[in-house]
């Protein structure tokens, strides 16, 4: 179990089990897809193609992909504001992801939630509120429902380091522990809760230590190593699915950009940002796969070209989609 917090220390890749070429290339494609979609979203926002704000996940893709990649359609995801890409990983058609940013009538919520606050009921992704950590509680409630109904699906709750300070975090994890619920808590510890550094958020070095207080396993992993997260998440998912209860995973990572696109993040030192960018989860995995002779320059170009075409099509769909009619604001108040 890695417990390192600095990028230099996190660089060495541990020995890996023999993963199939299909899995490795699949993870790679998804990492690249998340990166490219997120960067495209940032460009579109800067071009004023959509209003509001956007919460970039760039730099944290390994945590997102590693945790969500192997989920089944009937597994649940409780995302936060920074987990727009969880929708992409779970398999939501890309056109709906971009329609969400554009707040068009074709978005899964008909333009109600702000960009990046995205869910998708057909794949059991819970449309998030903005209240930090609220999704942990709702996700835990879903896990209770799964257990009561005797299903074997699981819930993955995504959140950041800031969310671990709120009382709701404690209530959720404690309840999940009492009832051994099928839930995985995946904390992207990116060292900054908006502008508040981790040292003012918690006295802990490893946020996974909190799991001890609840009586279930907690692991801290190199969150810029997609295989490290994948391994930890796979073990946690198996554990949850087999009725053994929750796991807390701390994915130690870094967000490259501000809290949101309107935050220049001047509170962070340039050297810190640059050091973490050298630990780019996409570049690291490319290097690993290239050394393994799984990835070639030609494949990289082909993957990028395919994703570009898919994004272009999705953006076109979003741009050509109609806005909701004003009176639609009155729909869906009562269920």
């Amino acid at each position, binding site marked *: 179990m890695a417990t390192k917090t600095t990028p230099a220390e996190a660089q060495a890749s541990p020995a890996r089990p023999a993963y199939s070429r299909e899995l490795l290339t699949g993870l790679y494609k998804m990492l690249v897809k998340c990166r490219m979609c997120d960067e495209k979203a940032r460009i579109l926002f800067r071009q004023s193609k959509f209003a509001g704000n956007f919460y970039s996940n760039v730099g944290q893709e390994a945590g997102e992909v590693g945790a969500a990649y192997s989920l089944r359609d009937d597994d649940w995801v409780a995302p936060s504001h920074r987990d727009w890409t969880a929708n992409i990983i779970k398999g939501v058609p890309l056109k709906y992801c971009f329609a969400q940013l554009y707040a068009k009538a074709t978005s899964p*919520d008909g333009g109600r939630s702000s960009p990046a*606050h995205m*869910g998708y009921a057909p794949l059991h992704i819970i449309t998030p509120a903005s209240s930090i950590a609220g999704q942990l509680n709702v996700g835990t409630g*879903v896990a209770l*429902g799964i257990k009561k109904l005797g299903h074997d699906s699981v819930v993955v709750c995504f959140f950041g380091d800031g969310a671990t300070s709120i009382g*709701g975090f404690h209530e959720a994890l*404690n309840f999940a522990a009492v009832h051994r619920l099928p839930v995985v808590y995946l904390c992207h510890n990116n060292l900054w809760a908006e502008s508040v550094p981790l040292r003012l958020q918690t006295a802990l070095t490893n946020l996974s230590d909190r799991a001890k207080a609840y009586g279930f396993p907690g692991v801290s992993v190199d969150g810029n190593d997609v295989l490290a997260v994948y391994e930890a998440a796979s073990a946690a998912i198996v554990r949850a699915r087999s009725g053994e209860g929750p796991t807390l995973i701390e994915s130690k990572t870094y967000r490259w950009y501000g809290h949101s696109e309107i935050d220049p993040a001047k509170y962070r030192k340039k050297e810190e940002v640059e050091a973490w960018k050298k630990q780019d989860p996409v570049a690291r995995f490319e290097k690993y796969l290239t050394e393994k002779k799984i990835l070639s320059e030609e494949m990289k170009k082909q993957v990028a070209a395919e994703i570009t075409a898919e994004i272009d099509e999705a953006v076109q769909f979003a741009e050509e989609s109609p806005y909701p009619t004003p009176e639609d604001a009155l729909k869906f108040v*009562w269920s």
Partner: protein
Amino acid sequence: MSRTLTFIDAITEALDQELARDERVFILGEDIGLSGGVFKATANLLDKYGEDRVLDTPLAEGIIIAAAIGSSMMGLRPVPEIQFTDFVTPAMDQLVQQAAKLHYRSAGTYSCPFTVRICCGGGVSGGLYHSQENAAWFVHEPGLKVVMPSTPYDAKGLLLSSIRDSSPVLFFEHKKLYRTIKGEVPEEDYTVPIGPAAVRREGNDLTIISYGFMVHVALEAAETMAQRGIEAEVIDLRTLSPIDKETILKSVRKTNKVLIVHEDKRTMGVGAELAAIITEEAFDDLDGPIMRVTAPDIPAIPFSPPLEKYFLVNPDKVVAAIEQLAAY
């Protein structure tokens, strides 16, 4: 077959029968299992249905509500209990930001049909933190239905309607009703629909609009005034959200005078909204100011008996207001 039951026995019977009828239903909350609830509303249900259906929870209102939200999203029908409305505040985020908005923010693709039973109300020496009402907080949140029965018949029928409703419902139970109010309750399954108000007493001189325990206070005052030749119509709202405008306006158009009686604080309370609705929609029918008898605007019900008495609405205060209004 109809029997005379106390208000709380009607609640217990509704829970019992719904647990038996629908295996998706389960109840959860603090002290509801082994102890059968602080007021014994869930007495013996743990023995009868087991821990899977009757769940004592950690002392954490937020996760009690969140457990209900999430499990109801899975198709279950949870009925959580908040022991005292004074302690609903730790669950505000879950109720207001999650439950009230889940259906809306997902464009109808998710819903959370649960019914939270909330014990409320003063007059039992509960002090600041065991006496509040606070229903108005939730009436302000579209997406949440708010129900507050005043009779054992409605308690059972509305609770069954609430559990079977597809929206989240806040079901307020005034604790003073639990054992002081008795009434006829059919043993068999029946429902009282969410929404419609009830006219508890007919009269032509003025309309009193109330809900919960205050309905009984209003009725007592109305009987006193009847002896003085003034006939008040008494409306029991039963549901605070959505509000039954039709019944209210029909009565106002008949009596032309309105007195609103509620136990909760005055400013921005349920009465303020009722007054606004009536002036907007029946202004020409009014022959006097819309008046309110409410608690004063102080933070909560103080404990010492004279202080508590000062806070609470009683029949004398209502009688005085009726006399004042009738003079117009």
